[in-house]
């Protein structure tokens, strides 16, 4: 909340080393940092970047699946997809709300996204070619998001952690609806089963890339973990996702497109191949299959909505003026 906005505590009354020691002790005791606490500039900047990127991902993430709302094969699937896409909007707004507690306005964040100064998850730059993609996105993409996000419910920054609790509760529906959709298709025709396998083949590697670069090439990770913004490394989360997904793939009757994927008895975990991280970097830099399309649509939606925002503000101003006239009279 913006009530708790900004730089309370850093008004100069207390010396910096003392503030810093208090912050470090709060983190060390696994307590939460709240908005008006003093925090290092780097901590604040890291959170703004991470929460904003997360919020932007939710908002852009409405597009790949939104395309299928009008083409869903039944009223039931249409209603489910509507609810899911609406949730993504909600998740974006919870996160913008959390970001605002750090003293940044969400209009400013939107501007940074539209100007390309802030990023969103690379996964949403891949196209949704068939309705099976809707199922695979729920299963893989939301499954990967759950792996990433469950530990963030214990993130050291209170408003972020609380947003994640709400989001994780809702992601569970997202993942289950996806898997159920795929189970249904796998019970269908040969063509439907082939569509599912094709979607699995296309989404598997981009989903593994969602966890970010490998640990030895992830410059911000160590500091984020020291600050307990992040709780697990990229590679650890990627491993968890693979271990979680393999038995689900077997049950579904699809093959994960990785010849190196096998159970490692000794480690008690799966061995798997390395995602093409040069592709990840390329897509992050803007050269994915749908980057231009996603940004163009987001920009258009923002511009098309301008008159609504202005009209609502004008209406509110008019109502306030009427009320003031009324009370003056």
């Amino acid at each position, binding site marked *: *909340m*913006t*009530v*708790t*906005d*900004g730089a*309370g*505590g850093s008004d100069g009354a207390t010396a910096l080393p003392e503030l810093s020691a*208090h912050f470090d002790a709060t983190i060390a005791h696994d307590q939460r940092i*709240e*908005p*008006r*606490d003093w925090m290092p500039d780097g901590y604040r900047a890291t959170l703004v970047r991470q929460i904003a990127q997360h919020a932007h991902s939710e908002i852009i993430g409405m597009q790949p699946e939104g395309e299928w709302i009008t083409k869903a094969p039944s009223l039931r699937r249409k209603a489910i997809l509507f*609810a899911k896409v*609406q*949730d993504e909007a*909600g998740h974006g*707004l*919870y996160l913008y*709300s*959390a970001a*605002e507690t750090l003293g940044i*306005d*969400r*209009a400013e964040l*939107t501007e940074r996204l539209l100007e390309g100064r802030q990023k969103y998850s690379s996964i949403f730059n891949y196209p949704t070619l068939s309705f099976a993609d809707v199922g695979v996105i729920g299963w893989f993409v939301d499954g990967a998001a759950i792996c990433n996000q469950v530990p963030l419910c214990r993130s050291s920054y209170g408003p972020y952690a*609380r*947003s994640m609790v709400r989001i994780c509760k*809702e992601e569970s529906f997202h993942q289950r609806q996806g898997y159920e959709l795929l189970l249904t298709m796998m019970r269908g025709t040969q063509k439907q089963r082939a569509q599912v396998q094709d979607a699995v083949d296309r989404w598997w590697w981009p989903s593994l890339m969602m966890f970010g670069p490998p640990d030895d090439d992830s410059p911000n990770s160590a500091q984020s973990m020291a600050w307990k913004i992040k709780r697990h490394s990229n590679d650890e989360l990627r491993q968890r996702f693979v271990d979680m997904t393999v038995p689900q793939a077997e049950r579904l009757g699809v093959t994960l497109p990785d010849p190196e994927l096998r159970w490692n008895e000794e480690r008690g975990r799966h061995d798997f191949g390395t995602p093409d991280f040069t592709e990840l970097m390329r897509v992050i830099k803007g050269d994915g299959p749908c980057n231009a399309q996603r940004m163009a649509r987001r920009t258009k939606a923002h511009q098309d909505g*301008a008159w609504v*925002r*202005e009209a*609502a*503000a004008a*209406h*509110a101003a008019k*109502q*306030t003026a009427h009320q003031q006239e009324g009370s003056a009279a």
Partner: protein
Amino acid sequence: MSTEAPRGSAGWPLYEVFVRGKRGLNHVHVGSLHAADERMALTNARDLYTRRNEGVSIWVVRSDAITASTPDEKDPFFSPSGDKVYRHPTFYAIPDDVPHI
């Protein structure tokens, strides 16, 4: 804390949202949102924070209307209660053989 009106998306003020989960519970702060006016704040709060029957009642209040204490737990503001252990039941030693106390 900021006392100026929150800057906003297209000048829309920021509202804090409080939801009563069910009858018998207090309203609890759940987050914030921007809206042009109070009515829009209420309907947006319903759409954003109660999509799954999370509430039976919503309060919205402009963020700039809230007065808050400073957050520091060592704040002298809270010191009047800090040294009064006798306000807690555990301060009083009662023999184990005294029932119902």
